[in-house]
């Protein structure tokens, strides 16, 4: 059984067929217009704007780009789903086990509260800020297994409130209303899991951060991120070597993973950095980490990650159809 919930900030009005999705990255602001039809989501148009030196310039540039898209696609509702990812967010799946006598909703509610507290503690500790506000973005029951005991797989995502406020301000100034935030890696996992059960590591290599997601059984188990400025460098070899060191150290931080899946997906704008695919492919992962075989490294199309936000429409529309 799968029960879906709307993104936390989403309005409870009918989700439009044509809508905006935004991926407001540290280096590039991306805006897409997507179209939902017959259970499929297709891209209609896109604009990509490099970040400017000043936030007000970003706001103006994004507004102009969104204005162009509105003009090109007048049927698109000025409603946007905004992708959330990076160090200021958390996304993980919690498995809650109990006796079959427990009510699923009650169990889930309790699990969500626990997850929020855990995310709050983690983000506050991560940034050394005991007062850091954390909001839940999504909560979704992925699966409920009932045998001699009940297992509930609950996915939740969270973000630093100030991060959400910054993003919401950009959306508002661009002339769009905010439907809600949704975890980028979660949506990508949903999309990649459609054809087969996904077991993989996903490296979202953005212009300003690298986020590593661990996926087992088609479920996003956990994400970890660090800030990394991906830009042209005088010594790309040393640059990539040190980035690999950072990635390798991050994998060590997934201390609960006994064996990593032997598949790696590279996505995000930084994944096209010269030589990156080669160094990831040739890195001796099993030397320092629990891999049973050398992982197969696959680079995804550049826009695959932000376009996966179309999964939100499929979930919302699907929920509406139920």
């Amino acid at each position, binding site marked *: 059984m799968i029960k879906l919930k709307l993104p936390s900030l989403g309005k409870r009005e009918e989700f439009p067929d044509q809508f905006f999705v935004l991926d407001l990255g540290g280096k590039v602001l991306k805006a897409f217009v997507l179209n939902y039809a017959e259970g499929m989501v297709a891209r209609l148009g896109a604009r990509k704007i490099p*970040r400017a030196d*000043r936030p007000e310039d970003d706001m103006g540039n994004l507004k102009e780009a969104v204005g162009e898209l509105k003009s090109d696609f007048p049927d698109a509702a000025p409603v946007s789903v905004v992708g959330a990812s990076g160090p200021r967010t958390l996304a993980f799946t919690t498995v809650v086990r109990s006796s079959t006598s427990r009510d699923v909703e009650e169990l889930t509610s309790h699990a969500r509260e626990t997850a929020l507290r855990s995310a709050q503690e983690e983000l506050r500790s991560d940034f050394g800020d005991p007062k850091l506000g954390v909001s839940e973005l999504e909560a979704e029951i992925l699966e409920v297994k009932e045998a001699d005991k009940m297992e509930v797989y609950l996915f939740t995502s969270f973000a630093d409130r100030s991060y959400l406020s910054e993003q919401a301000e950009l959306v508002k100034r661009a002339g769009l209303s905010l439907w809600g935030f949704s975890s980028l890696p979660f949506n990508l996992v949903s999309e990649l899991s459609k054809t087969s059960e996904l077991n993989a590591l996903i490296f979202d290599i953005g212009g300003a951060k690298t986020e590593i997601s661990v996926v087992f059984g088609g479920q996003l188990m956990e994400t970890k991120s*660090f800030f990394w400025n991906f830009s042209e460098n005088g010594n790309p070899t*040393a640059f990539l070597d040190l980035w690999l*060191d950072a990635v390798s150290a991050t994998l060590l931080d997934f201390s609960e993973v006994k064996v990593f899946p032997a598949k790696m997906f590279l996505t995000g704008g930084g994944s096209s950095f010269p*030589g990156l695919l*080669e160094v990831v492919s040739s890195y001796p992962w099993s030397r320092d980490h629990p891999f049973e075989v050398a992982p197969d490294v696959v680079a995804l199309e550049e826009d695959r990650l932000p376009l996966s936000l179309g999964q939100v429409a499929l979930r919302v529309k699907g929920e509406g159809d139920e």
Partner: protein
Amino acid sequence: MSSNPVLMDLFKLLEKILAGEKETVEIEVPEENFNLLMLRILQAKAKKERKRLILLPTGARSKRMIAALGGEKEPKAAGSKKSDQRPAPKPKKARTGIFRRFVLIASLLLVILLFLGGGAYWAISYLPRAEVILTLNPIPLVKELSVAVNISAEKVDAEKGIIPGDLRTAEESGEKSVQATGTAIVGEKAKGTVTFVNCLDSPKTFTAGTVIKVEGKDLTYTIDADVSDVPARPDPETCGSEVGSITSVKIGSQYDQSVGIEFDFVGGGYANDPTYNVYIASGQSVAGGSSQEVTIVSADDQVAVLEELKKELTEEGKKSLASSGGIDEVVVEEAIKSEVTEKKFSHAVGEQTDKLTLSLTMKFTLITYKGSDMQELVLQSIGALVPAGFTLFPGETNIDPLEPKLSSNKLSFQAKVSARVVPEVDVEKIKADLAGRNPGSAQEYLSSLTEATAYELQLWPNLPEKLQRVPRNTGRITITLVTGEQ
């Protein structure tokens, strides 16, 4: 509003740990855009490099982060709890001379090995040369522009279609001989004396110019001078006679006649009158007639030699006009204005000769322009038509001047511009991206270039593939762009 925050460069901090010569590395932990995981990454790197890491807070947040990392005194692997802030212990000193010598020799060998290895690495990395040919898929772009090459203009005016031009003149002289091809029959008329007979009772005068012809033949003659007062017949049995001279009307030996030939009068009121007669008496003759075919100058001969020489001089004139300008000077041949200033044939039409010679002088006038000016005009005029992400492919822009018209101060024509646009290629970026890659990686990268439809990669020297590298020095990488139709 403040500026966008500068991202803390984890790379630089890791580089600091890597490059630090001392065993202890101090790092100030930023307050913004930094998280606990990044501290663990720094710790792991320090451990890997066998260095002591001292994390220094720059504010309350970083202080808490460092505290959250833990309170270990020694550098720990990722996941360890605290950085080590103790000073580094002093290295132990070797205590024996033998050990010292061993260390010295080992160090020396190590230095040599490093030097040789470094040299080999340098040679493999920097000596190679890479040649890349990227094949681009061109899109044709055709446009017609109205162009006026004006000798008064000083610069290109794309809006008005004007480019500067120079008035060029050249004079060429030449001589050409051809075989005459006309033919004519020339010769002498037959002349002689004949006897005019008068059978009237009164004297008779046969006037000059009267035409007579050989009896029964179409050979005509005229009387040269009046044959006056040919005596009347003295008796009924005898007629009066007088000698006169005649000349054949046409040339040819067939007009020669001998004794006994009789003539009839054709006109002059004497025709068919039996009382008059003309004949060649004994001792008389009509002779000296002759004819032969000779070569003469025909009108066609003059026309032909004139055309041929004009053509030759025009070619010379074009060369002179072109050479009078710079290497970039464009000569629109169709617009060259030519005039004959002097023309002299050795023989007139009809004159007998085997060879006709023509001396000719011609003057050529043209307004020329610089190819670079035309290219600038084209770029400015059709630049806006090039789709986004494309660029005009250099060297593939053809400009055909259609219907050129030359006036006293300008050359006007419709320029048909046939250009090719190709996807924009950042050659320097490709070079930078290729630098240092092995052949497999380089080929994978080149095949990922959406701008190119095909590529060729040649690496020098031709080492085993495992040793081959694209040079790190981008100056040793050449990239040639070609189109698929070349």
